[in-house]
């Protein structure tokens, strides 16, 4: 047999391929998906299925146009992951065309136009989300209420969900309500305590639903940490910064600000911290860089939630920090072995 001539190393860690990494992230969303479905109905699951189909189709078309091997690239599951993350982020009742728009935009413009996996400067799922949020604000801010809160005392049935998603008829009013974040933002002149007492979306039942959802994502995120698919730096920095900002403003004005607990357990806090901000491609590289990056997102989330025009802020915060990531990277290189100081900047002249 002719002997192989290959340069070292001659061995590789078995099993841990890129597709495996993607699948693990997808698997880690399952707790969140289950809880979200249980509490808010089938809509999320249907969204995900639509999103995955749309993602695979758009990815395949683009790969074909770019004359790449379709099978090879589809098998890295990166498109599927983007679709799943988008499906989870979109409200459960959005019409199907909105999901398709978001996903195809994410795949085609946010990812493939930049050169495909590994080259996109922005988080594709969040680009897709932001586009539809800006273009179709109404359906995007209608979230379904959890079963024990809404007037009907039940979530939408599977059939109803399908009908809601595929028909142009508006979702039956009784099932929808604003998210707690949205409601809190629009509490108008009410004091915090009054709002929590009187606004439906801020009732303890709805809040605990959101708490469960966030805890489920936290569990999935911890699993990712355990398998060393992500490092702790980004989520810890993000949640820490968010908590610190919230505490600070709560201490200054307790009657009008929300508690840090409220900030960490509603909306997409945990989902964003463990699944969105940790997207490796568009985030920072070094551990130090990830700390800055996470902090930045946390602070931006708080700012946008409090003073911005949109109820939840993860998408915009992440996209803004995507902009800053390369810059942070240049100034957060680790100190290499044998060097007294870490290098800074991009070129030799830039250092120190």
């Amino acid at each position, binding site marked *: 047999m002719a*002997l192989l001539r290959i340069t*070292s190393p001659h*061995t590789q860690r078995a099993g841990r*391929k890129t597709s495996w990494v993607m699948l693990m992230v997808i698997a880690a969303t399952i707790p969140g998906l289950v809880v979200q479905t249980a509490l808010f109905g089938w809509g999320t699951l249907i969204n995900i299925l639509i999103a995955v189909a749309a993602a695979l189709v758009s990815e395949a078309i683009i790969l074909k146009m770019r004359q790449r091997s379709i099978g090879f690239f589809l098998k890295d599951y990166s498109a599927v992951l983007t679709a799943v993350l988008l499906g989870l982020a979109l409200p459960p009742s959005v019409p199907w065309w909105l999901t398709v728009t978001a996903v195809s935009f994410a795949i085609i413009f946010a990812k493939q136009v930049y050169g495909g996996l590994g080259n996109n400067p922005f988080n594709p799922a969040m680009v897709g989300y932001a586009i539809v949020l800006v273009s179709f604000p109404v359906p995007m801010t209608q979230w379904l209420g959890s079963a024990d809160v809404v007037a009907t005392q039940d979530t939408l049935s599977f059939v109803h969900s399908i009908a809601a998603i595929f028909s142009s008829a508006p979702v039956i009013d009784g099932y929808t309500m604003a998210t707690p974040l949205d409601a809190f933002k629009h509490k108008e002149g009410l004091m915090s305590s009054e709002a929590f007492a009187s606004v439906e979306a801020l009732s303890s039942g709805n809040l605990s639903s959101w708490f469960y959802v966030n805890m489920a994502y936290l569990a999935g995120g911890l699993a990712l940490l355990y398998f060393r698919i992500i490092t702790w730096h980004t989520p810890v920095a993000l949640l820490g910064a968010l908590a610190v900002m919230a505490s600070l403003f709560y201490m200054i004005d307790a009657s009008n600000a929300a508690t840090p607990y409220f900030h960490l357990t509603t909306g997409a806090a945990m989902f964003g911290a463990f699944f969105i901000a940790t997207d490796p491609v568009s985030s920072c590289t070094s551990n130090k860089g990830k700390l800055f990056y996470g902090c930045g997102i946390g602070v931006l989330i708080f700012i946008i939630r409090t003073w911005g025009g949109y109820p939840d802020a993860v998408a915009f915060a992440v996209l803004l920090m995507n902009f800053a990531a390369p810059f942070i990277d240049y100034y957060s290189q*680790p100190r290499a072995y*044998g060097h007294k100081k870490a290098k800074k900047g*991009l070129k030799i002249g*830039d250092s120190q």
Partner: protein
Amino acid sequence: MPSDVTVFEFHGGIHPEQNKTQSLQLPLGNPKLPDELVLPLGQHIGQMSRPLVKVGDRVLKGQTIAINNGFLSSFLHAPTSGRISAIEERAIAHPSGLSDLCIIIEPDNKETWCELRPMPLWQESTKTDVLTYLAEMGIVGMGGAGFPTQVKLQGAQKNDLDYLIINAAECEPYITADDMLIREKTSHLVQGIQILQFLVEANNVIIGIEDNKEKAIELLQNELRVRQLDKQIKIAVVPTKYPSGGEKQLIQLLTDREVPSGKHPIDIGIICQNVGTCSAIYDAVVLGQPLISRITTLTGAALEHPQNVEVLLGTPIEHLLNYAGCDHSQLQRLIMGGPMMGFTLENQQAPIIKTTNCILAGSAKELPQPEPEQACIRCGMCEQACPASLLPQQLLWFTKSQEFEKAEHYNLFDCIECGACSYVCPSSIPLVQYYRHGKSAIREARDATIKSDHAKLRFEARKARQEAEAAEKEAKRLARKKPAPKADKAKVDAPTNDVTTAKADNANKAEKPANNEASKKLKIDLAIAKAKMKKLEKALTAAQEETRTEEINQLQTEVNEQKNTIQQLEDELTKVAPPAKVTKVANPNEAGVKQLKIDAAIAKASVKKLEKAIKKAEDINAPELETLKSQLTPAILRANELEKSLASAQEAAAKSSDSTATQAEELSEQAKADTKKLKIDIAIANAAIKKAKKNIDAMKAEGQDDAAIDASGLPQKLAEHEANITGLQQKLTDLTATDSKTEKPSAEVNPLADKIKKQKIAVALAKAQISKLTKRMEKEPEKAAEIQLEIEAKQAAQTTAETELAQLLNTQEKN
């Protein structure tokens, strides 16, 4: 397991499957002698050794068969007794998969040792003596690149040494050679460490060993206790993690210090030695046995009986594979070294060398082909694994996009090529391959800048010379117009001047004004070049003293370049300003001889002085030793050269005054010896050319493009060697010419006429060659520089021939 000293941590690292048990099932094996032993002349870092034997010689086991050839070179010994059957190119174990010059020994199966001269009383010898002895015993670092041990240890003579670290970590999967060596030769190893400690006097001596070698640790601890050395020599048991055995990582583990980037451990007061080297030192010093064998691991799924063997250097790998029961149908990847940093071999005839710690015969199943490369998802797993705390994903990005400046800024050159990043990369990216490419591209670019500087200098020199030549031609044309009357006039004008020819005088007169300008300029250039050379040489010595290998190589090339430039400038100068002395001095021979005698005497005196200084330096172990030594060789060379020219001048003088036959004979003897030496040099250069050509072909065959080939530096080497050969051949012809001249001086009826004829031919030949080369240059502009060099050499030859001819003609006329 208890560790005597605190163990620190290093960043990153991986835990690949160890696969060490396979090769530890059987005891240390002893394969029988193969049919032939193949000993490459380059088993170490640095220059190839110079063979001392010739084909057909009988050698005894342990006899020195090649000596060192320069600073980082090493000695080589016969691993068994037998006959030198060839000195030729053979496949060697090298990442490039190429062949190189080897000494082949046909064993006589008697294993007769040569006379051994151990140093049992090493404690009473001077350190310099022991160090020199180690060099002569061919001891080099057996764990890594084969760095000559005495060079490494010399560094410790100047600096205070904090730590002597004995590297027994052996972190690469599969390899158990060091483990086995510790088990089998515990006491040799410990005594070897004692000798080392005697040589370097470190404040701490620590053996660093991974915790997966329990038995070895136990044996070591016992040995140290029995010898009551456990206070002086500590054992540090480090956790099993690749690459804990990397020099820098082990240093960090044991001392929490980092070797500064671009520096060496010695700069922070640390020396590392491999256990194999320690036991080899014991064998050499106490038993008097040079480095002729080593312990090597034979392992891999293709072998039926994986095991460690004590094997003679030069044993072909195939012999060992058969010994271990290799199933060749299973064998898919043959690796020298471990799976992380080893390199693949294609030729099983390649021999075991001093640094071969493992032969891994992998099956397709255990070392599967790499998967197709996917996009980098910037997951950062590589970064978490990198022991040098680099950002491998950024380095990948920059090397891939050829942004080498940025790659360097991101510390590409601190990458130790350990392969941890590639190992963990989920996208199967051959990261290390990209880094190697990036590094060599950067090095090439650096060399190229240096070369272009030299080219500029050369170009300017050439321009000056061309101008001078034009002037010369013009002068000649003028001279030719009315040669006869002038010649007569000259004779009349200078009737007492019996040597000056009318012709030469004529030409001289006409040439002078034009030449003066050019020669002035050349002289200035030459002075500048020489000054630069001096500076370079100084830097080189400094680099050598501190053993900064990379720099040494770099400087060496620069020095060589500079030498060429100087040589060229000198050539030009002689051409522009033809040896005026000859024409001016009444009796050139006698005066020349006198001058040469004086020069030779001065040179000899300076050699003697240097030798004395060296001896003194050796006695007191002075740091200038190296400098002095490096000065000695050129001094000796100069003395020899002078003597040689003296001899030839004397010969000429003797001939002109009816020399005796004996003198001529003596000279022809010497000429013969020189011829032989030159022929050998040519053969070596030829071999080098062949190799370079083969390399290029191989690269072409692999489908690498021209840029890659250029980047490998092979074409440049090729050109260098070719130029070298032309020079050598020129010398050879010169020599043979003188040789034949001296051989039968009286046999010729009319020696003068004959000589004139010969010179005329030589001139014609040179002219023809020049015109041929000029034509070639037009046809192959890309090789212009190279051809230009040749042309210049030829022109020099032509001028010499012409001058001689003129002289001869003159003599004839006189007669």
